[in-house]
């Protein structure tokens, strides 16, 4: 069934499909560059990511709020009713924008990759292409295809280019395999759900817009919803399925950490919203009975999200490894996204989507400082060892960037995190008031671990006010690509923080569109 049958203003934006194609073509082009000239390879990769970002930006500027951008729609596998349907609404556009930014920044922060450079950027661009594809797919089969395309490059990025403390490659092998298997196991659950949805709806379409209006029975939704939600939530780092995240983030090369935290975790959260909640809203309805005070899947997942927030933050508070601090903080911040979704209110879900964007940028920034600016120079991530190095003198740019990123991360006004988390909390306050206290606790611990990492690494108490004696082996200065990448991300978080309307104008009308009508009617509170 073509997409044009749904009642929503349509606009055409075929150029957006080129975000995907350009990434895949870029991956091939990168492999064809001469291996003797890595600089050329890097520029090709950067150019590819810029193309994706510019195309997205162009589409965002033209976008009429509330409409649906039709990108591509053609028959693909008619026997099963599967179509090649790409489309974007405001939520997709927000995340496409994030992907473009994170992709460019990731390449800038990978400028120093010398080992098998071409393969690195090839895997990187395939991953980016898969991510663009997921955010653009409006056919469930196609979405799943892109979702899985993104898994394999992640494995190789971590297993080949990950960090090897003291030359030991086993941790990164372990982390890479764990990440791949967790992702694949999650997607296995999603696949079961997709197949079931296809069979239950009469086996003639997998179009998201059509399925969103298909009256699945409540019984069916009750078991399909948790299956798909959990499947996607694995990638969003929901407790207790989060354990891939800290190890994966810590072992990955900087750009891969940035992408993992920046966009890959958002794939999971996006899937939760776009597939699980949009198609099976009745799965969120009360069961009619209570177990341990939980009366619906909504209560269950809200509680798990809450645990993610508090648990992630608490664990981050006691880490000795700088990268693990940020890794666990990602679990905590992604908890806000999932909690926001579970508020089932417009303001909460809006906050959740905004938080996806905001956390993508901020986590990218934090990982860039930790992995590229600090670790690649000092070769240690131990908080205790970093303190005495007087990094605020040795690497002032890193110190300033991290301070700003930390401010954004704890949700100070003026940065994007503030408005996002505020909306989530407002949503929670309206629907589940008792949880607000636990969320507040999570935020406080968040401030504490961020403060702890910031002071231990950059401003240790032992540091005297006077300029220190010159170090014997000065650290290499921050390079131009690093500065450019940091500025790019900082600008994005500050612009959205100061003027959140530019994203909210995309997100809010989309939540009110017919696509989400079943969700609105089925339990909007």
């Amino acid at each position, binding site marked *: 069934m073509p997409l044009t049958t749904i009642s929503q203003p349509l606009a055409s934006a075929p150029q957006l499909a080129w975000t995907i194609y350009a990434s895949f073509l870029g991956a091939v082009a990168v492999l064809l560059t001469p291996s003797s000239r890595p600089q050329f390879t890097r520029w090709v990769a950067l150019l590819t990511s810029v193309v994706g970002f510019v195309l997205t930006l162009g589409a965002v500027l033209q976008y009429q709020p509330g409409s649906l951008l039709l990108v591509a729609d053609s028959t693909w596998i008619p026997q099963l009713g599967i179509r090649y349907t790409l489309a974007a609404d405001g939520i997709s556009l927000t995340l496409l924008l994030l992907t473009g930014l994170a992709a460019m920044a990731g390449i800038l922060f990978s400028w120093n990759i010398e080992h098998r450079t071409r393969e690195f950027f090839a895997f990187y661009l395939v991953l980016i292409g898969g991510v663009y594809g997921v955010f653009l797919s409006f056919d469930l089969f196609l979405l799943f295809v892109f979702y899985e395309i993104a898994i394999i490059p992640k494995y190789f990025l971590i297993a080949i280019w990950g960090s090897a403390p003291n030359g030991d490659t086993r941790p990164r092998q372990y982390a890479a395999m764990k990440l791949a298997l967790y992702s694949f196991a999650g997607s296995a659950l999603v696949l079961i759900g997709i197949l079931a949805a*296809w*069979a239950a709806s009469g086996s003639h379409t997998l179009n998201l817009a059509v399925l969103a209006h298909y009256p699945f029975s409540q019984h069916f939704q009750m078991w399909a919803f948790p299956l798909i939600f959990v499947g996607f939530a694995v990638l969003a780092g929901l407790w207790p399925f989060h354990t891939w995240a800290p190890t994966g983030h810590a072992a990955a090369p900087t750009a891969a950490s940035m992408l993992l935290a920046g966009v890959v975790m958002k794939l999971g959260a996006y899937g939760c919203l776009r597939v699980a909640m949009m198609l099976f809203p009745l799965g969120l309805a009360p069961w009619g009975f209570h177990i341990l005070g939980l009366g619906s899947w909504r209560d269950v997942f809200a509680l798990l999200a809450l645990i993610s927030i508090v648990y992630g933050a608490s664990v981050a508070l006691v880490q000795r490894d700088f990268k693990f601090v940020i890794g666990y903080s990602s679990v905590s911040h992604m908890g806000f996204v999932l909690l926001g979704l579970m508020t089932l209110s417009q303001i909460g879900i809006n906050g959740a989507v905004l938080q996806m964007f905001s956390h993508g940028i901020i986590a990218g920034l934090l990982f860039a400082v930790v992995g590229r600016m600090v670790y690649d120079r000092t070769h240690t991530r131990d908080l205790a060892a970093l303190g005495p190095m007087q990094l605020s003198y040795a690497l002032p740019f890193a110190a300033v960037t991290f301070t700003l990123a930390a401010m954004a991360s704890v949700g100070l006004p003026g940065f994007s995190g503030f408005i996002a988390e505020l909306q989530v909390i407002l949503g929670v306050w309206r629907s589940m008031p008792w949880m607000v206290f636990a969320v507040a606790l999570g935020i406080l611990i968040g401030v504490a671990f961020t403060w702890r990492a910031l002071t231990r690494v950059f401003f240790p108490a032992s540091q005297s006010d006077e300029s220190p004696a010159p170090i014997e082996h000065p650290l290499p200065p921050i390079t131009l690509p690093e500065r450019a990448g940091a500025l790019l991300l900082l600008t994005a978080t500050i612009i959205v923080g100061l003027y959140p309307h530019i994203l909210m104008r995309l997100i809010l009308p989309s939540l009110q569109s017919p696509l989400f009508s079943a969700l609105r009617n089925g339990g909007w509170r």
Partner: protein
Amino acid sequence: MNPVSYAELLRLTLPQIALTVAAFFVLACDGMLLRRSPIAVRARIAMLLSLAGSLVALALLPLTAPVHLPDGMLVLDARTGVVQVVLLLLTLAVTLLSGSVLVQQGREASAFTTHIGEFFALLLFATVAVLFLVSTQNLLLIFLAVEFLSLVLYVFTAFNKHSRASAEAALKYFLFGGMSAGFLLFGISLLYGISGSLDLQQIALAASQPDSLLLAAIVLVILGFGFKIAAAPFHLWAPDAYQGAPSLSAGFIASSSKVVGFFVFAQVLFIGVASASGNAAWHLSAPGWMPILAAVAVLSMLLGNLAALAQTSLRRLLAYSAIGHAGYLLLGLIAHTPQSLAALLYYVFTYALAVLGAFGVLAVLETNGIDSLSSLAGLSRRSPTLSACLLVFLLSLAGIPPLAGFFAKFWLFAVALQAAPAFGLLWLVILAILMSVVALFYYLRVLRQVYVAPMAENATPLSSPALARITLLVMAALTLLLGCAPNLLMQRLR
């Protein structure tokens, strides 16, 4: 009964005749004219002759009008035509790969055999057998063709005369095979006793009521075919045969023999004894071949995938994963809907393509002394082309999009869910999907060696014959193409 003219019969079996002629030609040429020539020359000529024979057979395939000869002796329609084309293409690929590998080995005086002509002749004879198997619905002919094929495959397995493993594998294969042939024949004789006919359609008419004798016959037939498709618990020969046989013989056993095994199995069950299907739905189980196959499928999926985790030899790993794949494929039989045979064929075709490709890569690697998982280390830097092909084949086997194996799984599981009663087979689908997560682990372990592990200090770039590389690249491209545009093959399987 309308009489059949011999001219008509000859016309319909022209492909088989062409292959047989080519086989004798190869034998004669190699045995009489070229006995003293170097192996590289003999291999090249034998390969060219076999290629010519297969291409002629491909051109002569009677794909026009459906044919149904009395007693189901020869039944041809659009679907059998597709299967025959695929089987001939697989033979072409085996010929090209083994020819190019033998030419190279001949140059380096390291060929696994000096019986070049016999190797290619046996390949062509095996192809004759599989073509007959596809085109008949007569149990006697099925049995004869199965035995013909098995005999060739036993020899194929034992072809490396210098290897004890090869001889041992062939002996195991032969003993198990002989046993299962006995069961199959017993089952067939019972079916004949019940119905008085060897034609599957006649049997279906006579055996419309499931009774205990029919069930006994079905169990025996399942035993016989379970061996052919290497499903647990009839799989014991497979790991040894896959490991001991020369790599491309193993490739042929894993691909063509599997395709034809599943197709004939499906014919017998769907046409002959559909009335005794029973039901494998978790809440409505009823006796018949469905619950038996469901048990076999569960066992194969679990045993194949879990045992593959522990393998250190790449070939044994492929053997156990083949057992796992047989388990998935059985879902297509258990579903038993009009679509499920098409989905099953799509799966088994793409599986054969990928597994033959993997064995092809192995064959090239083995000429360079790489045969275990650990010796694969750093392959991607020694031979980027072969590594990329291996990546495509293994990820297709693992079911990663956009490769053919993914869509095959998707379609197969989808038809299994559609089968009546709706969602009755959900338990099998869930098990299959979870097992494919396990499978990803061991495929990734191989790819980790290839792409991640550091190269050995003294490693040099690999030499690989250009013809083999091109063949493998074409097969990899086909795997990608069938994954991106499954419709190309799907619409021919209706």
